[in-house]
Structures are given as C-alpha cells and as structure tokens.
C-alpha cells in the first residue's frame, strides 16, 4: 500500500490504521465512507467512482501535509476506491494517529471535508430508474427533479 492512494479493489481499513500507529500515538481515528442504500428517498443500486488518478493521489498527499501542519504530531494515511461499488462497500478510508485524541478527531474530519472539495474524484449514482454524475446538480437543475 501507499500512504495516499487510489485503489480499484476492496479497502481494508486495518492496513491504514496500522500504517499510522507508532509508540507515541495514544489515539487513532479511522473514518470509512460507505455506499448508502437510500439517499433522500431514492434507492441506490450501486455507485461508480472515477478519478484523475495521479492528480487525486497528489491532492490526498497535499491534504496530509496540511493536516501535519495544522495538527503537529498526527500521522495520516488515506485511500479512495474507484470503479463499481455496491451497498456498504468502503469508498474512502482516512486513518489518523495522534498523541492525544482531540487532534485525531479534528484532523480526520478536516480530511474528509477537504477530499470532498479538492480531490478529482467523481461519483455516479445508479438507481433503478436512472443514473447521474453527482456534484453538478446545483448548477444543472434541469438534469432531474431530485
């Protein structure tokens, strides 16, 4: 595994938590984002993720640097899966260790917010009666009534 990576196979969170663990770490937070069956009353059959892989990995690493700067002493590992994911599959994992717990929580939440802002990854939701690339809805209201 790499510390910051895009993968096209199932994510094992344990690998990332082990990566960040060290003798000075008193706290580890692991966030996993999963494919949810229902969103706003619409049933998702599966998701498809696509990424600009080299830039996405570079942006993940940059987010890691931001975290180490804001919360000195944290260690971070992150991965995002691409391809087709079914319900409950892990799309993203963020593992953060820290000497104390507060930074481990804060830095972890910061990471997922940043991923959603800047990492070039796109999600397509596939429902029983259609599909749509997510992210552009606000500016393309004509694309559907959701």
């Amino acid at each position, binding site marked *: 595994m790499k510390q910051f990576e895009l993968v096209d196979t199932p994510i094992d969170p344990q690998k990332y938590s082990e990566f960040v663990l060290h003798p000075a770490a008193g706290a580890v937070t692991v966030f996993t984002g999963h494919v949810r069956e229902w969103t706003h009353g619409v049933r998702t059959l599966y998701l498809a993720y696509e990424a600009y892989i080299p830039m*996405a990995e570079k942006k993940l690493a940059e987010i890691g640097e931001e975290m180490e700067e804001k919360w000195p002493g944290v260690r971070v590992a992150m991965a995002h899966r691409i391809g087709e994911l079914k319900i409950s599959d892990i799309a993203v994992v963020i593992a953060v260790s820290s000497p104390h717990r507060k930074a481990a929580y804060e830095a972890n939440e910061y990471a*997922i917010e940043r991923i*959603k802002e800047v990492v070039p*990854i*796109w*999600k397509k939701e596939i429902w029983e009666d259609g599909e749509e690339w997510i992210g*552009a809805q606000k*500016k*393309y209201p004509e694309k559907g009534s959701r």
Partner: protein
Amino acid sequence: MITVHYFARLRELTGKGEESLDRAPLTVEELLDWAETTYPGFGKDTIHVAVNEEYARKEDVIQAGDVCAFIPPVSGG
C-alpha cells in the same frame, strides 16, 4: 500539442477520455471557450482546469507539452 483529459460527465459528453490539441500556447480561459464551442453543453462555468495535475487560473497560459484536465465539480468521499 497539448493533451486534454475528460472525466465523468465530460467523458460521456465528449465520448472520449482524452485527446491531443495543436493549439498551444493558449490560456485556460481560451481552452474552456474552445471546449464549450466544440462540445455543446460542456458547462464551462462550473469546470476547473488542471494543468500538469495542478488547478490553474483562467489567465494561466498552457504551453505545448502540458497535460490538461477538465475538472467538473468533484464528488468523492
């Protein structure tokens, strides 16, 4: 020549993942205008451009050999 990548909705709209253009040098804004003209419905106002894997500003100049990517609103996580 520059390389341009298309992802997600743009890949489906253009029907291609990437192509080469013989238009350098040009600005990011000029590239977006070209895309909007070439591919109706491109939606350039919501799209960022990455040059060599870094987000670029509208006025940045793309040089021959650069690798560009159109980045529609991201939705990872």
